[in-house]
């Protein structure tokens, strides 16, 4: 039975309900892990990196309790392009390089997506406070950045709602438009992103007044970091995978 294709806003920027090892992890561990894994694989790519990247994706899927139903079904033409690339690369005698490059690229993006499904974005702000602490000593406004990060994340759902209304109005108005020339339609469609931007800015200013009512941009202090066994396990897994990647070169 075919299931309906999920809309992007039904899947992106959402956190899986329930508990999982990845969910318990500190957001900072995930940020560091993502960066270390990406750089490690890029430093010494090969079959080792390709296989460990895919293995890590599978491990993360399990550790995050990601149900299969959440995984996006790729569009047929995207699959077609990748297959065509593989075929031409095979004819050109470089199938191995193509598969390795694709596996590593895919692994990096997929790992990011899995991490995003298990991390409430608000936790990222707290992690930024801790990770940026050394910069504070040189007078960098790390607290301001973290507060902005949290505020931006907080306002995204509201913005999504308002964009939906803008699009709905646009569609209803286009439907009754008496002039249906390509030029008119094109112009109306181009005006939509501009309107969305102006609306976003207006909303940002309203939020600014609310910030002023609370005494201006805050400078939050660090919250204590609680590391779990999962953090240690994740970092170990990444280091082992990179070591393996380096031991098994192309």
């Amino acid at each position, binding site marked *: 039975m075919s299931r309906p294709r999920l809309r992007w806003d039904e899947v992106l920027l959402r956190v899986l309900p329930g508990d999982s090892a990845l969910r318990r992890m500190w957001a900072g561990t995930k940020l560091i892990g993502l960066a270390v894994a990406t750089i490690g694989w890029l430093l010494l790519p090969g079959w080792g990196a390709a296989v460990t990247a895919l293995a890590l994706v599978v491990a993360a899927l399990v550790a995050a309790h990601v149900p299969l139903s959440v995984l996006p079904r790729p569009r047929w033409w995207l699959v077609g392009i990748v297959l065509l690339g593989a075929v031409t690369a095979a004819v050109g005698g470089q199938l191995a390089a193509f598969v390795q490059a694709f596996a590593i690229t895919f692994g990096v993006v997929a790992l990011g997506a899995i991490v995003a499904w298990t991390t409430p974005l608000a936790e990222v702000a707290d992690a930024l406070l801790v990770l940026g602490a050394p910069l504070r000593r040189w007078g960098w406004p790390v607290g301001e950045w973290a507060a902005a990060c949290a505020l*931006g994340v907080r306002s995204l759902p509201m913005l999504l709602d308002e964009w939906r209304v803008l699009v709905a109005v646009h569609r209803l108005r286009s439907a009754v438009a008496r002039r249906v020339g390509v030029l008119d339609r094109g112009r109306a469609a181009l005006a939509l992103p501009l309107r969305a931007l102006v609306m976003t800015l207006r909303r940002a200013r309203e939020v600014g007044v609310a910030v002023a009512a609370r005494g201006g941009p805050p400078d939050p202090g660090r919250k204590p970091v609680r590391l779990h066994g999962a953090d240690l396990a994740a970092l170990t897994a990444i280091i082992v995978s990179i070591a393996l990647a380096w031991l098994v070169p192309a």
Partner: protein
Amino acid sequence: MPHVRARPSSTEFAEGAVLGALGAVLVAVGRLLPHLGLVELFAVVPFAVLGTQPRLRAGVCGMVAGATIATLVAGLGAGVEVAGCALMGGFVGWVVRRERGLGTILAGGVAVGVVSGIGIDVALVVLFSARELAFSSVRGVVTGIASLLKPVPGLASAADQLGGVLRTVLASWWIWLPAGALVGAVAGMAGMWLVLRGLLDRIPGRGRPGLGVRPPTPGPVRPVPVTLQAAWVAGNTPARSGGLDVTLREGEFVVVTGANGAGKSTLLQLLAGAPTVSGAVDRAGGVGLGEPGGTALLLQRPETQVLGMTVLEDLHWGLPESLAVDAEALLREVGLAGMEDRPTAGLSGGQLQRLALAAALARRPALLLSDESTAMIDEDDRLALVGLLRALPRTHGTTVVHVSHFPDEVPLFDRHLVLDGGRVVHDGPPVPVLCRPGLRTRTSAPHSAQGRIVLRAEDVGVVRAARTPWEHVVLRHIDLTLRAGDALRLAGANGSGKSTLAGVLAGLERPSSGRCLIDGLPADRRLGRVGIVFQHARLQVQRPVVAVDIAAASGVEALEAADASAFAAPWLERVGLGAELGSRRVDELSGGQLRRVALAGVLASRPEVLILDEPFAGLDPASRDGLAETLREARGSGTALIVITHDVVQGLWEHSLELNEGILR
């Protein structure tokens, strides 16, 4: 650059946060969903807007926030890309703000191109293995294409050339790739500048300070007593009468009324410490906006004031750590006892205003400015909120200044200021507020109970994120039949699926199960037959001038201004606004006027069914009667109505249904 280290104002900070997050979302969506890859191109735009701000630090703030969000959502590459977009967009914005020309843009493009070219070379030297792998892969694909093309007559030489070009580029990549980056940066930034230059100038209110964006005032905080003498705010439409004269003492309970443009906002801005263009403000100490013992604000739109994810988090947002706060007692005081851990996203408008009041009270303000804070909430919540405000002068010694549109609120106050034309025309005990001159009452045309069926929903169900852990059944088994001239009231709590149902009935969304028919065809193929008046009218009225918007809403594009006015006039009169309003700018309208303009636009598109989302919220009794009359008229002419509302309006509908967890009863 003198502004690099200056603390950003609240507005700049919020713009950095919101626009940075927007840039991050655009990049993340483009990366994770390759079929939407094009949206990545727009990611520079929010940063270009940030770049037009005078304080670089606000832009950096947005960049770091955006890059962090993007890294977590779509990986390290996305974070780096956001940073790159921020640099390019920020520079373009800076050039627009400084009104520099093409020369500066080209120079900046060369600088960015050279720097990123060097960056590319360094990265590719360090990551030499990844470079070789990528090159091999590309070489393989291109060689493959070339050998596949070879047998095709006429394409053989092209295939050879393709292979030759690739060999040249890959052999001396350290020249070709940076050169490509340089050309891309120069062309891209010049193109962006050409497009954005016009766009950034069209963004309204750029560089204008809003209410209370000043940095904290030095010295002791004491906002009352305060005396205004012929005072007026810089940047506001000049007063015709020389400004405002008002004296406020401690513990007063003041209501302010007056028509639009009478000076109500100006009065609040002056009290909140906005700089004056004329007259004098004599204050006991500093304004202390949002500071302990200072001035607190309660704003009109409930949902924009919320800054935290949960009730408790919001209450503590921005509170200085030195300030001891009994959160439980505060929440009890405003009627939110025991709701500490509730997510703010699920609260009603009235609850959000109570929460905002609790956050204000946590700072023990000496002055509370309420800017039409009751305008967008339900009737019951409205009077309850005024009741809460009424207790403040007594319990906290706070001076309360409340701007209101509602005559029934006025008698609850001790002192009443009536403003007109930028002048105080009454200052004393509450006086009755004149309602607008009597609205014409007409007996509505009797409608036939057995009209033609215009809309039919059969067993409609909507499921979001089906078969995932986020699965959410929004609507189930909805059956509904509407005949021409029918009227139906739809009630239901927040999140009961009312907006989704409206979207399905209008054909904006196809139901997951069942079907919705308009004149026998699926609703999504009859888009436009059902008109919706959305709750937030500012999103619906999209053109800068009233008449042009009404014309556009009814599908008449590209009219001359005069034609648009003539077209819009009858529709404006139908919703109880004068025809002369057609030439006004949308930015100058009040909330109530905006809603009626939105309604006029939808009526002008002559829908067979009209859906209105909370049309009565925040209207004073006279406007409410006027709207009900307009709707009765629309009904009389055969339009079927669905009114989503908490309110009860006598004689407007004969059926009332309630939506409860997706089930219609």
